[in-house]
């Protein structure tokens, strides 16, 4: 089985979600007897990052470097990726289920005329074929799907598949394609970062989420302090109620009309646990809840709970985490 992982690069780095996809592709290819390749698109110099993907199991990294590919461009990336996939005779093509991956994959599907399975949470090889599991109804149910086309095209949910380092080096191959950026109709005007260096809630490996119990948007300082104490891979989340109230941006919303997340550690602070919020975070590794109300539904899914006033608990928690991190 020959699998291609289409990876992302940002500020000279391949983000975690992309490394996970390479690693998952390598594990599955190994299981089925085959090899995993990676496709890296970017500006001139992007090939510097290519060799490092060998450590996650890619035997070959195909690099397309061009000024017009320095940042994600939907028309350019979909054209280039579809060309590489067609030329490579792949059995499966995986992308990370990030906002970029979920934008690119459907275009790729239409260009290749194959179906697409978004947001896969489990993948295995059974009788030489891929068996894929994906959530529906924002995680209230999971479906095992069957794809009757080749290549099997899927996006993999961040933080679910481990990024395993292994001994291996990748052969880096530069792909020369005739690109005509003037023919790409979309014009990328600007990008405005919202969170600075804070990772997006969908990609963060630790999430600090706040709900109505926070009482006032000003109080988010408390959560941001905790987030900062937890480290650079921690992000902020929010319940639907506080997003609807305009306290927090929609990009942070966790749940059925927001994002479905799977961090290794999730803090639900002042969140009662409406069914559609629970659907969005129940696949988190460890869930911690802090709530005044001992009967709040969030305690039914939390691994650890503290009943009490979050305005006392959270600052103390931040202090303890800071002390712990300082110890190393």
């Amino acid at each position, binding site marked *: 089985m020959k699998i291609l992982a289409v990876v992302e690069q940002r500020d000279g780095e391949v983000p975690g979600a992309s490394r996970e996809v390479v690693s998952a592709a390598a594990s599955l290819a190994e299981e089925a007897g085959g090899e995993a390749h990676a496709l890296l698109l970017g500006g001139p110099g992007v090939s510097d990052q290519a060799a490092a993907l060998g450590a996650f199991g890619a035997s070959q990294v195909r690099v397309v470097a061009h000024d017009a590919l320095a940042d994600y461009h939907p028309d350019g990336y*979909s054209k280039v990726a579809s060309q590489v996939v067609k030329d490579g005779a792949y059995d499966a093509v995986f992308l990370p289920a990030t906002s970029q991956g979920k934008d690119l994959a459907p275009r790729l599907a239409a260009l290749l005329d194959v*179906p697409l399975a978004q947001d896969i949470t489990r993948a295995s090889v059974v009788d030489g074929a891929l068996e894929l599991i994906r959530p529906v109804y924002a995680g209230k149910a999971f479906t095992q799907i069957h794809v009757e*086309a080749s290549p099997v095209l899927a996006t993999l949910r961040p933080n679910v598949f481990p990024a395993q380092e292994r001994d291996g080096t990748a052969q880096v191959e530069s792909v020369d394609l005739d690109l005509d950026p003037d023919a790409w109709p979309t014009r990328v005007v600007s990008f405005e970062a919202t969170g600075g260096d804070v990772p997006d809630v969908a990609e963060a490996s630790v999430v600090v989420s706040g709900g109505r119990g926070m009482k006032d948007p000003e109080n988010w300082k408390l959560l941001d302090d905790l987030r900062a104490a937890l480290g650079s891979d921690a992000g902020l989340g929010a319940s639907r109620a506080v997003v609807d109230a305009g306290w927090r941006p929609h990009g942070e919303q966790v749940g059925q009309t*927001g994002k479905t997340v799977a961090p290794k550690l999730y803090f639900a602070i002042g969140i009662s646990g409406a069914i559609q919020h629970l659907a969005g975070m129940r696949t988190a590794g460890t869930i911690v809840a802090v709530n005044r109300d001992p009967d709040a539904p969030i305690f039914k899914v939390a691994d650890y709970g*503290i009943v009490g006033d979050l305005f006392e608990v959270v600052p103390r928690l931040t202090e303890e*985490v800071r002390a712990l991190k300082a110890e190393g």
Partner: protein
Amino acid sequence: MNIIVCIKRVPDTETRIRVGDDGTSIDQSGVKYVMSPYDEFAVEAALRTREALGEGEVTVLTLGDDASQETLRTALAMGADRAVLLQGDVSHDGLATAKALAAEIGESDPPLVLLGAKAADDDQQQVGPMLATLLGRPCATAVSNFETKEGAVVCQSEVDGGTQVLELPLPAVVTITKGEFEPRYASLKGIMAAKRKPLETKDAQTAPSRLSVKSMELPPEREAGKIVGEGAEAVPELVRLLREEANVL
């Protein structure tokens, strides 16, 4: 400017999901169906665009069975001008859906096609950009706000870590997410008027689905964990457990 909005009938997001007897789909008994919330944003965006420009017609389009007429009527009650029901099977294969929609939309070729960024049932988040690619049009996804200008639409696309501004020449396809387009409620007058608005039914030109569901299961119940304690005094013990038992700190 004429606008087509593609919408979908889905279970209310408050629904408690149960697996049906077939083991591959949900038990529909007692389930309340609504327009997918993202599609409501898209209908609202279309209505506001029509109102701002003072001209054009908003058509709502869906692929589904007769029950979807109710969803189309909801959009008509919000203010859409006409509705089209493509009768056909809806599967989890978004490309099959996109092909059916493309066959219909290609005929009238309106300057702007809007969809919800994803359907709140299969969460596949793909029909919009697939449709655009099939039609050979540019597309912006997860757009929280946009404005039309001479021959183009300028979109704020919500991406991980920020907002990307994209300018698409018309005709274009845009998928809408939560943001600027908080949907209006249908007025009583709107609901009455919707009954007299045209709703056309035709057979969909469906492509076979190549992505099927073999089985559907509910996630394992998370076992309720422990209440570590009450108030700030419980924090040191919580931190110890996170570090030593859960190994996550």
